[in-house]
């Protein structure tokens, strides 16, 4: 019975949070047109969020690409299928790994930074201070940060993918001795712009929205104490990671 009660309570909490996030999203969307009148604030956030994550994303992209190159080369060379290595690596990256790994890294780096920044602004009464200066913190703080994450994610994903492909090329061609032409040439025929590339871009757009929304939501509703902010930061990573994986499955099912 206790287990059943816990499950029921957990489900009720999930629904309540889901509802709160949805309402928060509606508030953000309602304030977005006015926030767009201040593009400077948004671009500043794209810069902050993007620059925060750029080195991490590039390093991760490089090593993910190198691992893919190594693994696929070893496996495929056993079947004499090295000529498919290029397209396989690109498809794996563009369709799945690029958007998902970027979103997970983004949640850990930029998402936590956003949540803790907003949480601390709340704890130090900066948000209340804005309210008292007749400046809406939703419009000045929350919406630009959400849009910053939303815009930065596809850009970071593109950078991740590009570096990862170069990483795979470096391993397969430079280290394992595969022919460069064999690596690049089959790509145009096997990678479709609409199905593969745009599908991946769409995923990264959704992940950007989810990661941005959850980070600003957790920060904005954080209990204004040190413990509250730390809890909000942790929740941002956990909830964003789970949401990205669930969304990934749903989007893949729709796009496939």
């Amino acid at each position: 019975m206790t287990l059943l009660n816990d499950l029921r309570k957990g489900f009720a909490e999930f629904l309540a949070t889901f509802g709160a996030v949805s309402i928060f999203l509606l508030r953000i969307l309602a304030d977005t047109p006015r926030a767009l009148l201040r593009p400077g604030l948004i671009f500043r956030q794209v810069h902050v969020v993007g620059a925060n994550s750029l080195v991490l994303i590039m390093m991760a992209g490089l090593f993910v690409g190198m691992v893919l190159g190594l693994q696929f080369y070893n496996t495929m060379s056993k079947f004499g299928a090295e000529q498919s290595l290029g397209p396989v690596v690109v498809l794996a990256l563009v369709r799945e790994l690029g958007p998902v790994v970027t979103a997970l890294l983004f949640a850990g780096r930029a998402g936590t930074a956003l949540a803790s920044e907003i949480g601390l602004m709340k704890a130090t009464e900066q948000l209340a201070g804005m309210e008292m200066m007749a400046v809406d913190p939703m419009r000045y703080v929350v919406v630009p940060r959400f849009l910053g994450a939303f815009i930065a994610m596809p850009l970071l994903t593109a950078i991740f993918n590009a570096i990862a492909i170069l990483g795979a090329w470096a391993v397969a061609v430079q280290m394992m001795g595969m022919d460069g032409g064999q690596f690049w040439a089959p790509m145009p025929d096997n990678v479709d712009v609409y199905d593969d590339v745009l599908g991946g871009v769409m995923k990264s757009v959704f992940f950007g929205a989810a990661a941005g929304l959850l980070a600003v939501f957790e920060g904005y509703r954080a209990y204004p104490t040190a413990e509250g902010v730390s809890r909000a930061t942790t929740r941002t990573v956990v909830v964003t990671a789970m949401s990205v994986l669930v969304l990934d499955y749903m989007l893949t099912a729709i796009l496939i």
Partner: protein
Amino acid sequence: MADNDVLIEIRGLKYSRGSTVIFDGIDVDIRKGEVTAFMGPSGTGKTTLLRLITGQLRPDAGTIRVSGEEVAGLDRNALYDLRKRMGFLFQNGALLTDLSVFENVAFPLREHTRLPDPLIRDMVMMKLQAVGLRGTASMTPAELSGGMARRIALARAIVMDPEMIFYDEPFVGLDPISMGQIVRLIKRLNEALGLTSVVVSHDVAEISEVSDCIYLLAGGRVVARGSPQQLRESDSEWVRQFMEGLADGPVPFHYPAPEIRDDLLGEGKRA
């Protein structure tokens, strides 16, 4: 005094947080041009009162009128319009940490006006000069001491030339020099700018120095009201305990608890 001298009028204000009653029907008149202080022991809801007056909280019952407008009845835009006429000094300053001192003070001007940059610069510098910190314009809030941060916040609070200004515990945690500076600023700004000031504090000496009228709050009610002189001469035991800082009196030293003998030796003893 005529009624139109009253800028903020509170009638029958009730407010509870959970099961704790913070205000149980209080009446307050804050007059134009005066410094009005609210004092009382910690936890009596002094800060809550400021938040109610400025529309950050809504009362459970009763009315709060500022310039004749009922605050709880205002929609968001009207509330923001009212707040543009208010300055609010938070306990910790609440400076925006990602902006420089200059940009912090310029913030309300940039958000609410379309003034050219040279004019904004002059206005900000004048306000910084008024609080004696023009030299810190290029610093960040992290480089300021607590007292300096509060003075910068004060410059920001007056940069829009408000009609009224609210100070939330302006003397907490300040050294005697900073405290003296803030006391002087509250008094001088009120006179020079023709402000109406509301100060929340429990520093008896400082409040007595700056205020024209003091309200003493306790147990959700106004227990005394008058000029500092009147309160000092009051024969109410409660007022005397507070004004003279006596440890025990109508406000007991001990939080309600079972008899100590029972607690240590008897049934109340915990494992």
